[in-house]
């Protein structure tokens, strides 16, 4: 019969789908029966009927047998764990931290860099940085965008916090003014009403022209909150900073670009407003490199026309919207991803090491099982089942850690858009976790499984079987030392960068300073042009409070370096080399902030009240024109403005959080209209600043409850908030490095104490021949340190490479120097020696007679 060989071959192939244990026992009998039945069925129909019956049988019985064996393996594993709960607990904890941290950090990376933005074709959207196209009038801007060779459309926007009317107490909202085509560039349709129409953006200062651009699209949340989701909201008005805006549309839920905005209005273009951001969409067919090239040409062509300001410190660039939004968080999250991958690798090597040790320990049991007929595949699969279960349990525990990590990340680095929420309940994140989990299990299982194969092959209990595993384990420890070294170096790197960041002389003293912000936009004080009297009254009340030493106010507080106004200031008509920031303040500001007046004095109350043209400049500005002290009495000039008389030189205050932008030129002038946008009261108090927060806030509110009061914080709290990100990175990397070090110590301890047990007889013989226990321990120490050195040398090389990588990612990070490398190696040698010494303490208790008797 021609079919016989083929049918038999096919059936054999199906039999291979049964689990190994079942196949070993029954495959022969089943094949034999198949032959019998095949012989009995003659004809095509009988053969077909046989195959139908057999296929049904296979379909039912294979899953049953597979799940049965897997269940047995699981039971066996659980019994094994119960007999060594410490061992299992340690392995699960180490893996859970590794997997959890990876999942948590990936959920951030996924939200910021992988998941696409909720806009139409988001990968074609671009942000233009440090470059604003012609924008003195609406026509100028729209002409520019229509002529662009590489952009199909572009929109300008400016973000601000503003006072929102219609709420019970004065409150603040993030609003944006945009060119009319903002929504169409993003490809977003309002859910109700429409976006803005052509020509609804106008030329004008401030809020523009009532009747022309007094329109608003409101956010979905605001619609629900203020109007209860009423569809008749179109045509209603909303008050922003005292301006009545007519609502023409409602944005879709979750739409909050830019910067969590809740309201959008058509822009008012005016000469000299440089606060614009620009978003654009690439022309179809234009690639990113082409766009970058075209952009560079355009910057070159337009930059001389942009107002004669020195632009040497600007670096215009065009990036995808996604990269632009991720900004600094991108680097931090990538660095973190690297760190947590290292942690997981270290945890894997460690747990693999433990598993090999235990497998070696179980060698006798495994050889007996194998002699009893358990196949190599069966034993290997049992080990693999254990690894899968280990990894699965660790993943479940890791998800809890991941959840905690993401909620921490939201606090430290909130996502720029509401739609970019960090969540572990995301298909991609869960797939990533599953992948990590399976890879972990395979990585753990592969070496012990190979080892099982060798036990099976040898089927002996000779001591040679352990030598190979010892080499593998030593290599694993060396690899672990190397990875740990890299993490330690990275943590040292970041720690130093952080210390450097915190140690900068900021030019003011944060201790004992209370800060409270107010905004007068849209209030009666602004309408009546009586901002200064309001501030004077508030300051009088604050100063009369017990425990308050001095008080003042400023339009810009250090560390909050956005919305700066400045320009090419000069001395007696000679322009400075760099632009200067202009910082309007009230009297007593330097005294309150603990600033240092180097020469001259600060403003008097009378000068502020009379609007005197006086100025204080920082040392750096003054030093640009010769000896700083000589600048006192000279004229501060800009364009054709009436010059200011310089009355004092101060040590500059650090307004920027970014160290690379630090130490710029600063010009302080009396604030004539404090409270526009917003201003901040500062007060220096006796005792703990926190204790005075409420009292000072109440004093401010008592002057006029309609004025929104916000940002009630001590200066120390503001500093902590601003540096929460770097501090968190440092702490987290320290934690990972400490965890890695602990794992490395455990690994070293484990392998050395295992070696002591393995070589007990050899030790006994050596001691009988006159070697002292101390010398024996010294020998093991030398051997152990060799293993450390084998890992430490590539570790140092890796650490220096990592340092360079970190340098490019984080400001202020520098690769570790030679001294630090040596220090790290010494630290490692010390820690390793201690754990080796502890692991060999058993030698001193060895009973030579008992050992020799067994020989």
């Amino acid at each position, binding site marked *: 019969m021609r079919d016989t060989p083929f049918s038999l071959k096919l059936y054999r192939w199906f039999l291979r789908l049964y689990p190994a244990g079942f196949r070993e026992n029954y495959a022969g009998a089943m094949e034999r029966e198949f032959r*019998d039945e095949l012989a009995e069925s003659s004809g095509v129909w009988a053969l077909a009927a046989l195959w139908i019956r057999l296929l049904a049988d296979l379909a039912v019985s294979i899953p049953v047998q597979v799940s049965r064996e897997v269940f047995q393996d699981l039971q066996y594993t659980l019994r094994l764990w119960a007999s060594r709960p410490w061992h299992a607990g340690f392995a699960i904890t180490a893996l859970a931290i590794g997997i959890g941290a990876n999942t948590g950090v990936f959920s951030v990376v996924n939200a910021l860099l992988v998941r696409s933005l909720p806009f139409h074709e988001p990968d074609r959207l671009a942000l233009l940085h440090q470059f604003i196209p012609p924008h003195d009038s609406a026509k100028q801007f729209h002409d520019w965008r229509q002529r662009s060779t590489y952009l199909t459309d572009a929109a300008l926007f400016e973000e601000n916090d503003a006072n929102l009317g219609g709420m019970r107490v004065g409150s603040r909202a993030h609003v944006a003014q945009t060119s009319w085509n903002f929504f169409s560039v993003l490809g977003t349709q309002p859910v109700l009403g429409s976006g803005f129409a052509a020509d609804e953006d106008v030329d004008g200062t401030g809020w523009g022209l009532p009747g022309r651009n007094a329109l608003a699209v409101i956010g979905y949340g605001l619609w629900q909150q203020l109007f209860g989701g009423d569809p008749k909201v179109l045509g209603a008005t909303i008050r922003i900073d005292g301006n009545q805006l007519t609502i023409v549309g409602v944005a879709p839920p979750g739409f909050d670009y830019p910067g969590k905005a809740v309201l959008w209005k058509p822009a008012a273009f005016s000469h000299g407003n440089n606060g614009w951001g620009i978003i654009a969409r690439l022309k179809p067919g234009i690639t990113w490199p082409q766009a970058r090239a075209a952009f560079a040409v355009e910057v070159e062509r337009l930059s001389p026309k942009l107002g004669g300001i020195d632009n040497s410190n600007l670096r215009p660039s065009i990036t995808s919207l996604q990269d632009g939004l991720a900004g600094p968080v991108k680097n931090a999250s990538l660095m973190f991803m690297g760190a947590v991958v290292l942690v997981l690798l270290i945890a894997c090597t460690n747990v693999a090491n433990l598993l090999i040790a235990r497998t070696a320990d179980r060698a006798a049991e495994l050889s007996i*099982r194998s002699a009893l007929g358990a196949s190599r595949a069966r034993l290997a699969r049992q080990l693999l089942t254990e690894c899968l279960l280990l990894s699965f349990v660790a993943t479940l525990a890791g998800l809890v850690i991941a959840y905690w990590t993401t909620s921490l990340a939201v606090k430290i680095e909130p996502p720029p858009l509401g739609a970019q929420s960090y969540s572990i309940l995301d298909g991609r994140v869960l797939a990533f976790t599953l992948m990590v989990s399976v890879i972990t299990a395979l990585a753990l299982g592969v070496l012990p499984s190979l080892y099982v194969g060798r036990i099976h092959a040898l089927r002996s209990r000779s001591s040679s079987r352990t030598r190979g595993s010892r080499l593998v384990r030593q290599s694993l420890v060396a690899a672990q030392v190397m990875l740990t070294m890299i993490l330690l170096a990275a943590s040292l790197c970041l720690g130093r960068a952080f210390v450097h960041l915190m140690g900068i002389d900021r030019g003011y003293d944060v201790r004992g300073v209370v800060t409270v912000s107010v905004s007068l936009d849209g209030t009666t004080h602004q309408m009546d042009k009586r901002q200064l009297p309001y501030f004077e009254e508030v300051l009088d009340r604050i100063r009369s409070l017990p425990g308050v030493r001095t008080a003042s106010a400023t339009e810009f507080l250090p560390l909050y370096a956005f919305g700066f106004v400045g320009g090419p200031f000069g001395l007696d008509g000679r322009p400075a080399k760099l632009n200067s920031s202009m910082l309007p303040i009230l009297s007593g500001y330097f005294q309150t902030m603990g600033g240092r007046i180097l020469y001259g004095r600060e403003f008097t109350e009378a000068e502020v009240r009379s609007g005197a043209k006086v100025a204080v400049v920082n040392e750096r500005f003054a030093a640009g024109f010769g000896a700083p002290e000589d600048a006192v009495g000279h004229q501060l000039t800009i364009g054709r403005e009436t010059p200011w008389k310089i009355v004092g030189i101060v040590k500059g205050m650090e307004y920027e959080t970014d160290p690379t932008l630090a130490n710029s030129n600063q010009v302080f002038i009396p604030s004539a209209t404090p409270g526009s946008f917003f201003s901040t009261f500062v007060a220096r108090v006796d005792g703990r600043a926190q204790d005075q927060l409420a009292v000072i806030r109440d004093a401010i509110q008592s002057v006029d409850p309609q004025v929104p009061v916000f940002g009630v914080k001590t200066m120390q709290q503001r500093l902590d908030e601003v540096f929460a990100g770097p501090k968190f990175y440092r702490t987290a990397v320290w934690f990972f490095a400490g965890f890695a070090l602990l794992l490395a110590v455990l690994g070293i301890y484990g392998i050395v104490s295992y070696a002591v047990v393995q070589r007990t007889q050899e030790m006994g013989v050596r001691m009988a021949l006159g070697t002292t226990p101390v010398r024996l321990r010294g020998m093991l120490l030398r051997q152990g340190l060799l293993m450390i050195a084998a890992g430490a040398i590539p570790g140092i090389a890796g650490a220096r490479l990592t340092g360079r990588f970190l340098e490019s990612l984080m400001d202020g990070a520098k690769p570790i120097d030679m001294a630090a490398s040596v220090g790290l190696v010494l630290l490692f040698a010390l820690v390793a020696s201690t754990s080796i010494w502890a*692991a060999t303490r058993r030698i001193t208790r060895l009973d030579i007679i008992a050992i020799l008797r067994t020989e």
Partner: protein
Amino acid sequence: MGAIFDNLIESRAYSIRLCTNMSSRDQSAAADLTPLSPAVFHILLSLGGGERHGYAIKREIAARSRGKLKLGPGVLYGSINKMLDLGLIEESADRPDAHLDDERRRYYRITPYGRKVAQAEAVRMRELVQLAAARFGVPRHA
């Protein structure tokens, strides 16, 4: 910390636990396993008549059920595997005369426990039959 490794290294008591429920078998009442699946009950019935190999069991069951119950090899040996684990049957070392035997065939026989379980199943069935007879009566020609 050291305790983990000391524990790991010093626990050299190798215990072999075969994955059977040998110890628990005696305590569990035979009735706990009922109702048996038709395949298991038929296999016990066949082995009640003496030692058989798998193929013989299968043919006997097919004949007894007039061709209605044809066990496929996977289900048959799956059931045998499970019954061995439960201790209902055991593998027999005795072989018929060499010329009648194929070395690859495995022979099985029922254990005393297997008999008890089969009895328990028969009792259960009888009670069902009696109940059915009381409710519906028993026709002369089924």
